[in-house]
């Protein structure tokens, strides 16, 4: 299959390309950019007039719900959602049932994803067995099976001795730990940012210091053990400040923020809107601004979707009983673009946060367009306005705090390995 993408505006932040260029694809690879290779005859031509041609997006945190929570979503539905959102590579969290703590489970997941063939799936293995925070998993075997890093998902390691050992062991092999920093005790039973809004609504709060405390201990241990740490989903101004300082000191740390947290605050909980029940919680305006600024100055390296499909029943409950999380794969692009436009940044700036930067954190090849690389490509109209409705979303999870709101930027085509995996209906 040979595809010719013509008349598109190619933007590839990694190679600093922003030009009107045609792209030529053969046998799943990019074989030409700009100039047509000799004796290239396209089987299919995609007219990308008015569209931006970008590397397929790379997401650092998706929950695919399989195995164990198929009532909320399945691999098939969520990989369709990835394709619809222009996401061609994604890291999935180990908090499935059973937990991704055995090589066989990882192999099964990789195999299933390959069969479905709508996105590259990169599992994050469990750092401890059953995510229990006590016993290390077989990290080498899990890596052989396909894990690209290790994570505790939303469970903390409260025992600092274990965390220290986990860091040392991972550092032995050069593995990256993906940790969401939250002090388990300060966060206990909390469902919202500890502030004026939670106090008024009578919701148990999680102080921003819960993030700060955990980051401080993780970074200190990372520094001592020389471990690569990726901090997942920062939520607070103090978290951003700690990461900024750590980077200045040369600690090997990277960080991401969820697309939701760039735009929402605890005020958006409104009258107990369970779609705004997220982990970490939405925090104050000041925190939101610090996250946006941290993303701009490079303290935060990437934006993730924090995709968490939740079935309707689990959201139709009082706020604190509802399951946390938002469906996000299909909103990653428009929310990243919205951040860039609010801060007078370019489309290229937005794309770098969802292409090569997360790819570098995962240590994978995707996230750029160059001759010889896999043809994982997203084509989108940056000016198209669309409204987030349940029927618009391919994900089985219709849960998002952005329901009913307008988004700017819509994916028209997604290509994986040179195959069209998504095409918008007009």
């Amino acid at each position, binding site marked *: 299959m040979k595809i010719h993408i013509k008349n598109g505006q190619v933007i590839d932040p990694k190679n600093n390309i922003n030009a009107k260029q045609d792209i030529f694809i053969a046998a799943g690879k990019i074989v030409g950019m700009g100039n047509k290779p000799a004796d290239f005859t396209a089987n299919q031509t995609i007219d990308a007039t008015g569209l931006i041609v970008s590397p397929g997006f790379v997401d650092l945190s998706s929950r695919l719900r399989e195995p164990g929570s198929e009532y909320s979503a399945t691999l098939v539905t969520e990989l369709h959602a990835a394709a619809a959102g222009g996401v061609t590579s994604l890291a999935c969290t180990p908090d499935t049932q059973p937990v991704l703590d055995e090589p066989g489970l990882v192999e099964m997941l990789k195999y299933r994803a390959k069969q479905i063939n709508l996105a590259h799936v990169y599992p994050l293995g469990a750092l401890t067995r059953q995510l229990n925070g006590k016993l290390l998993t077989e990290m080498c075997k899990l890596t052989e099976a396909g894990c690209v890093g290790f994570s505790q998902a939303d469970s903390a390691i409260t025992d600092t001795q274990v965390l220290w050992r986990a860091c040392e062991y991972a550092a032995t092999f050069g593995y990256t730990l993906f940790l969401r920093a939250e002090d388990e005790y300060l966060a206990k039973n909390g469902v919202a940012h*500890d*502030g*004026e809004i*939670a*106090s*008024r*609504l*009578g*919701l*148990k*709060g999680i*102080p921003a210091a819960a993030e700060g405390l955990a980051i401080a201990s993780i970074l200190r241990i990372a520094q001592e053990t020389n471990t690569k740490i990726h901090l997942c989903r920062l939520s607070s101004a103090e978290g951003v400040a700690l990461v900024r300082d750590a980077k200045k000191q040369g600690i090997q740390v990277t960080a991401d923020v969820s697309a939701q947290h760039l735009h929402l605050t605890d005020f958006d909980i409104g*009258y*107990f809107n369970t779609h705004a029940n997220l982990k970490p919680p939405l925090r104050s305006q000041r925190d939101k601004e610090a996250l946006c600024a941290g993303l701009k100055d490079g303290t935060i390296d990437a934006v993730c979707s924090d995709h968490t499909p939740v079935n309707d*029943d689990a959201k*139709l*409950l*009082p*706020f*604190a*009983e509802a399951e946390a999380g938002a469906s996000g794969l299909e909103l990653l692009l428009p929310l990243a673009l919205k951040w860039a436009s609010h801060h007078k940044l370019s489309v290229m700036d937005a794309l770098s946060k969802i292409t090569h930067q997360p790819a570098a954190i995962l240590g994978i090849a995707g996230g750029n367009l160059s001759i010889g690389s896999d043809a994982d490509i997203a084509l989108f109209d940056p000016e198209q306005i669309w409204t987030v409705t349940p029927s618009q979303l391919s994900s089985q999870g219709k849960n998002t705090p952005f329901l009913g709101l307008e988004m700017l930027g819509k994916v028209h085509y997604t290509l994986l390995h040179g195959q069209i995996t998504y095409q918008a209906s007009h």
Partner: protein
Amino acid sequence: MYNPQLDADGNLKHLLTIEGLPKRILNQILDTAETFVGVAERDIKKVPLLRGKTVCNIFFENSTRTRTTFEIAAKRLSADVLNLNVGTSSQSKGETILDTVDNLIAMHADMFVVRHSQSGAAHFIAQHVPDNISVINAGDGRHAHPTQGLLDVFTIRRYKPDMHNLRVALVGDVLHSRVARSEIHALTTLGVPEVRVIAPKTLLPTGIEKMGVQVFHDLRAGLKDVDVIMMLRLQNERMSGAMLPSAQEYFKTFGLTQEKLKLAKPDAIVMHPGPMNRGVEIDSSVADGSQSVILPQVTYGIAVRMAVMAILGGGNA
């Protein structure tokens, strides 16, 4: 701004929280309650305002006192009353809140009185009932207990009619108290110029001062020259642990005694939403003393709940 408690004409549709309700509505409820105070003193303690209507008390969290006063209030308005202690029935069989509510809607109830241990449960139910059903929040988690807040200000108004010239102190566990939140909103909405909260830091929520109150950590300083003292209940399970070291120490530092009461104005009134922990938050001699209005609170509670039901039921007395 959209307010789920009001209909398009600005009339009360549900009573979920005092927060955000205009003063006009609070006064309408209090004035209506005045007309019901006399009903209890008649030989026939009934008015026909809700005749033919069905009021359903759905208590996901156990309560005797509140449920009983709602029941009496509904019966005095001639409504049929259905009591459901869900805490002990369907929920334990795994039925969701909405399933329970849907079943009651199918039985053609007209009004739901709801208590639940989770903040926001009443809002949640109100969002899912059809237009012709009103929801009254009888307490949701730590969030709100609006009829308690209303009966408290009703009681204050009866003893201290000039609300614009009052100093009110709330003492105790504000952090876990839906009553405190509703009282604060009711008092500030009605124009009480000075509302104080007095508690150790462990029992105050973050940012409480943003709700328009002054914070005191010393009971003596906080009680100085106040007109009204509203004591809050301290739950047994919070008396010793990480919040407080012991009930004895709490009584020593934040318990209301005759001696401390003397710091308030000589004609100050003492209130408590009940049930009281004598010797923990309040000394018996104060609870039963001449300045206590704790039992009148209960009596007025019925009139206030009748007023809320009458207004929601359309029979604006």
